């Protein structure tokens, strides 16, 4: 468990944040630029002093201003991947990678140079100097360098923000691999919601120096404050599920969500994969009786739990579909015409094609490891 409580004031800005996150796992610190995310991880790393702070990682107190405890950054075993990489310009990629490895304070080396070189595809880059690398290669090297110091926690400060779209797509899969292959807790700072959807297991939503919500993404995705940050068109419930069958010929997969099943349009998943699906509120249709003769591939039975005002005379409807919750944005007129109120029974309609690009693999099948070791 990572326990964090921070307060810092400086001219016109106040950070006052508290969050806990399970370890291992990827905690996303998500919020707009300037909301205090980077300040927060700088305090966690020990590079920045806070007015008051408490940082505890798996039972070890790293900072406790009330007890005057502050372990220097070089003794914290906290790896840090900076937005701008910060590779040492006078050293080759290999020497950059070895820098932390040689100075590790861990009792043993769990992550080896060979492992990192293979995981991050750094083979052909080892003898190069940082100025000879592309932006994506630089960030991969920075990631490897931080991991080789055998950190107990890895902090990532918008590691993809300085990259163009193509480079981002190049580095993201590596981050997923790290999450799935190494059990190092990570705190991932981002203001890009798609990165959070793809990587995070736990989300801390920040706004103006405050934590406004925290928890699993499926819960945080329902929080009203999210709309102001991601924009109304990106509001949507995120549901977790397991792939139960794949029809590769037409790019479809069935995902068990709660007590129901969802047909989604996705490639590159296999049966048993754990996935998360973002169902954008504006794409969700509600019906009060069972519809027939529609092209829509998903009809889930549910119950309306809340109806709140959304902008432009729209309403945001929360529907419980049996073990999962979805959001639907419909007009005020539609709410009145259907006579929707709390407790109404509805059919939730989800077009399979609307899920395309909104299905994210969050891990290999849970059973695979146990199954293979047991055989």
């Amino acid at each position, binding site marked *: 468990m990572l326990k964090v409580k921070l307060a810092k004031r400086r001219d016109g800005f106040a950070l006052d944040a508290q969050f806990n996150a399970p370890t291992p796992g990827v905690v996303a610190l998500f919020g707009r630029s300037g909301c205090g995310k980077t300040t927060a991880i700088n305090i966690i790393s020990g590079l920045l002093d806070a007015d008051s702070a408490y940082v505890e990682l798996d039972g070890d107190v790293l900072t406790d201003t009330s007890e005057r405890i502050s372990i220097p950054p070089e003794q914290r075993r*906290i790896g840090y991947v900076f937005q701008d990489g*910060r590779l040492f310009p006078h050293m080759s990629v290999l020497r950059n990678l070895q*820098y932390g490895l040689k*100075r590790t304070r861990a009792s043993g080396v769990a992550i080896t140079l060979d492992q990192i070189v293979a995981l991050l595809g750094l083979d052909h880059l080892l003898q190069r100097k940082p*100025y000879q690398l592309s932006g994506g290669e630089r960030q991969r090297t920075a990631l490897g360098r*931080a991991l080789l110091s055998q950190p107990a926690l890895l902090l990532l400060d918008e590691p993809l923000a300085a990259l163009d779209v193509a480079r981002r797509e190049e580095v993201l899969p590596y981050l997923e691999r790290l999450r799935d292959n190494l059990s190092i807790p990570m705190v991932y700072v981002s203001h890009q919601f798609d990165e959070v959807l793809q990587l995070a297991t736990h989300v801390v939503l920040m706004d103006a120096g405050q934590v406004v919500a925290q928890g699993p993404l499926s819960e945080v995705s329902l929080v009203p404050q999210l709309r102001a940050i991601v924009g109304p068109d990106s509001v949507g419930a995120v549901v977790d599920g397991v792939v139960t069958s794949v029809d590769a010929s037409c790019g479809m997969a069935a995902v068990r969500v709660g007590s129901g099943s969802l047909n989604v349009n996705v490639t590159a998943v296999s049966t048993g994969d754990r996935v998360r699906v973002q169902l954008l509120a504006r794409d969700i249709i509600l019906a009060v009786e069972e519809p027939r003769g529609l092209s829509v591939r998903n009809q889930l039975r549910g119950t309306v739990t809340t109806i709140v005002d959304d902008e432009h005379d729209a309403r945001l409807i929360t529907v419980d579909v049996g073990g999962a919750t979805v959001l639907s944005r419909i007009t005020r007129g539609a709410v009145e015409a259907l006579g929707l109120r709390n407790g109404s029974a509805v059919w939730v309609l989800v077009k399979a094609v609307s899920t395309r690009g909104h299905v994210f693999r969050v891990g290999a099948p849970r059973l695979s490891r146990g199954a293979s070791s047991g055989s």
Partner: protein
Amino acid sequence: MHLTPAELDALRLSLSVAARSVLFSLPFAVLIGWLLTRGRFAGRWLLDAIVHLPLVLPPVAVGYVLLLLFGNNGPIGGWLRNHLGIQLAFSTAGAALATAVMAFPLMVRSIRLALENVDPGLEAAARTLGARPIDRFLTITLPLMWPGIIAGAVTAFAAGLGEFGAVITFASNIPGITRTIPLALYTAIQSPGGDDQALRLAVMSFVLGLLGLLLAEVLARRARHLVGR
């Protein structure tokens, strides 16, 4: 060009004095440069001013102050002579000291500039990778300052070859001991019939100066490559 033994002596002395002055002052220049850039202490402006004084004082005045402090009867010079048996005034080492003091601001300036160009973010990165302060300085800060240190050293060396006022005041003009090229040149101009010798010494100064500038350029290029730019 045929050089007389006296001229060769002057050349040898100039090179030796300049080299010794640089070697002796370099560690101090790095330390002072670091203090002036990164240090947070009360008397910083005063240290800054003292370091830069030789730039604005008449060299003869600097030589005179050195004579007062490091002369055989001065507080520091007397102690050195009684306890360590070292005599600075009127010796080659004294000429090197006077040269070092005069060239010190040039060296500190260059080192400060170099240090200001080192991204503190890189040192922070080294910190998160487990490097302690001295380790960080030796593996990150110092190598990245290298181009500036080399530039400062070469400039100080080249300037040291020509130092006149402070040397002649503190170390006097003793053939074979403190008569460097500029002092020999001055002596030749003052002596009747010394025109040929003066010309040869002047040409020597030119050639040395050019070689020094060339060397500075080559070294700076190498050092920049070393730090990956």
